[in-house]
């Protein structure tokens, strides 16, 4: 079997290509970067060292988010103005999140029930599990038996703040939304990205759908510009430290760039409720992987 070497670790080419195809499809379908799937799976399935998994995952996200953006815009899905309003706060939030992570690293190790784990792993992975569980539960609860047309008639609670400059999102059917609130959401998403090492799309979509009342397909097409910017910033930072394996990325990307577009097309053909339920199942699988990894750390 063909193998490439990543930091002294043999990685099967076909396995990595298959992972790229699967994660690319999810990224295109749900308008996310896929970092919450890619990074843990590279580590768990192929034993890629964590810093290289994070750096290579971000680098792969540069390609898939670019393709997802182009394909969603060709399908008239997504609000560019929402992305541009979030972008400055998001980039600032990434820096704040990274500083918070550095502070947590200084806390050393904690002992629970006789087992000792780094405090940063415990906090970050617990936060990861809590965030993803909440997101999955929301998708499942709202997707079950929902009628999407109601969202066109009833904007979400965040759309009722009318402070500061107001902006319209015509594709989402919203005409007076506070730009300041959108900018603060960008700051919060950026903080989560910097702290948890994820693109943030997985947390943004529920805010758009249940907070603002975006139709599901408009939500999955929104936020991709921010994902792209976050991925570029993260890739540069990790590449300068030698934490990106370009051969690994290119193998994942060849299939992933096609499957991301197929995923975007599928998002157009599925009902909003079904899209939400599938999303919930995928996120729940990621939660199980993180809990399993955390339990393994405690045992060892």
């Amino acid at each position, binding site marked *: 079997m063909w193998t490439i070497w990543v930091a002294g670790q043999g990685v099967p080419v076909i396995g990595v290509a298959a992972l790229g195809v699967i994660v690319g499809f999810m990224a295109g379908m749900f308008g996310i970067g896929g970092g919450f799937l890619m990074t843990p799976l590279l580590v768990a399935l192929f034993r890629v060292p964590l810093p290289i998994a994070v750096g290579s995952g971000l680098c792969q996200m540069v390609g898939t988010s670019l393709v997802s953006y*182009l394909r969603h815009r060709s399908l008239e899905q997504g609000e560019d103005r929402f992305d541009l309003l979030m972008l400055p706060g998001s980039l600032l939030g990434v820096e704040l999140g990274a500083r918070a992570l550095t502070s947590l690293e200084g806390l050393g190790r904690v002992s629970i029930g006789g087992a000792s784990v780094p405090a940063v792993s415990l906090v970050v992975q617990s936060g990861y599990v809590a965030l993803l569980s909440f997101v999955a539960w929301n998708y499942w609860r709202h997707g079950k038996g929902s009628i*999407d047309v109601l969202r066109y008639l009833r904007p979400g609670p965040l759309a009722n703040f009318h402070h500061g400059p107001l902006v319209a999102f015509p594709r989402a059917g919203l005409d007076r939304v506070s730009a300041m609130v959108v900018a603060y959401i960008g700051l919060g998403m950026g903080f989560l990205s910097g702290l948890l090492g994820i693109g943030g799309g997985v947390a943004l979509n529920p805010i758009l759908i249940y907070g603002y009342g975006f139709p599901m397909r408009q939500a999955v097409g929104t936020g991709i510009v921010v994902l792209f910017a976050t991925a570029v910033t993260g890739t*540069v930072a990790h590449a300068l430290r030698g934490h990106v394996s370009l051969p690994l990325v290119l193998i994942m990307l060849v299939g992933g760039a096609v499957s991301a577009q197929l995923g975007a097309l599928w998002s157009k053909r599925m009902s909003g409720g079904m899209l939400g339920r599938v999303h919930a199942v995928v996120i729940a699988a990621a939660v199980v992987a993180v809990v399993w990894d955390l339990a393994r750390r405690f045992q060892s």
Partner: protein
Amino acid sequence: VPSWPPWLYAITCVAAPCAVGGVMYVLFGAWERRRRRKAGLDGSGQDELPPVDYLI
């Protein structure tokens, strides 16, 4: 990691995925247009069934 200057490697790590993504976008778009032409659709996307959300 090749023995390039770090800044050159960082630029390559951004440019290469963009290039691969761009090529795949163009190829996939050409395949999709060909598929639609073969299926007798006009290529605008307006003649397919509307999304399920609008079919209530």
